[in-house]
């Protein structure tokens, strides 16, 4: 039998100090977030969105990779089918948020409902890794996750504006390595997450499954396939002591 996890019943606080700490932990991401948001603003201008529409998209969707991909497929005529296709593409690109919400649930569900739901509404890659790393290092305050998300939500929305205005300067995102912002940020943050006993099997399995899926299936399914495979491997071969 396994003993109950020591954290299982302890309530989780959500403090203002934690939210400030979350914002502070987000500061290193700001250059990446600013440049990525500006690139989305530039793509919006290129596709004929008004400034108001570009800001509305960044504020309500707040998920850069899906915004960029949807803008690449932005139609000229908005039939119901075209809108459904955009929603489907957005879902596919953002399906990783489903896994992230699942991973955060054992921690956040012990926190206060209102702030936790607000934090979930602003769930993205950046505050997910900030929150996960903080919690993996023993932190409990849900405010860190919530504050990081809200802080970058505001920055993300505002940074769309100069991008929309200066779109013509950002037409080649590859040249400025904007396409690498997310993988590079993830790489840096993965260093603090690695636990040899747990991850020596999970990470190679995740990488292998993701690479194979990326070769076989178009789109972003490789993230889901790799993450689920790695996670299941960790579950199946967990330490039984």
């Amino acid at each position, binding site marked *: 039998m396994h003993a109950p996890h020591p954290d299982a019943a302890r309530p989780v606080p959500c403090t203002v100090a934690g939210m400030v700490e979350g914002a502070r932990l987000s500061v290193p*991401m700001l250059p*990446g977030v600013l440049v990525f948001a500006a690139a989305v603003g530039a793509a919006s201008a290129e596709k004929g969105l*008004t400034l108001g*529409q570009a800001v509305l*998209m960044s504020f309500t*969707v707040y*998920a850069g990779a*899906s915004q960029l991909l*949807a803008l690449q497929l932005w139609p000229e005529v908005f039939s119901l089918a075209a*809108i459904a296709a*955009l*929603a489907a593409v957005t*879902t596919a690109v*953002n*399906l*990783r*948020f*489903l*896994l*992230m*919400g699942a*991973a955060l*649930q*054992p921690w956040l*569900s012990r926190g206060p409902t209102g702030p936790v739901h607000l934090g*979930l*509404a602003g769930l993205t890659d950046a505050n997910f890794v900030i929150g996960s790393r903080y919690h*993996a290092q023993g932190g409990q305050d849900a405010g860190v996750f919530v504050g990081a998300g809200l802080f970058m939500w505001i920055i993300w929305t505002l940074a769309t504006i100069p991008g929309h205005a200066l779109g013509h300067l950002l037409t080649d995102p*590859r040249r400025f*390595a904007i396409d690498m*912002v*997310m*993988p590079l*940020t*993830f*790489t*840096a*943050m*993965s*260093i603090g*997450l690695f636990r040899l006993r*747990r991850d020596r099997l*999970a*990470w190679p*399995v*995740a990488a292998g499954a*993701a690479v194979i899926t990326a070769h076989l299936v178009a789109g972003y399914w*490789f*993230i*889901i396939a*790799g*993450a689920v*495979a*790695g*996670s299941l*491997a*960790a*579950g*199946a071969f*967990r330490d039984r002591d």
Partner: protein
Amino acid sequence: MTATEWAGPVTAILAMAAATYAVRFAGYWIMSRVPLTPFLRAALEALPGAIIVATVVPLAMRGGLSAWIGIAAATLAMVAVRKDIAALAAGMGAVMAARALGLP
């Protein structure tokens, strides 16, 4: 801009937003209805790292040599100074330099 010109893009944006909120809450909602067995706990604890690895490795393979140079630079900077911003700066600088030199 007439009302119909405005309505299409805004409807599309709101549909994208609704889809994104649905996935943001779905995983959390599902996990709150599934009992947390030792298997699931171990799987969820490994999930953040697995998501990162499953994202970075295929994107790097797609990005070519310049992407690997950037990831190597970011890793070295992170191990050396343990600062996210230094790692991101080193990585992006290395990618831009590699691409400016004409590497794939």
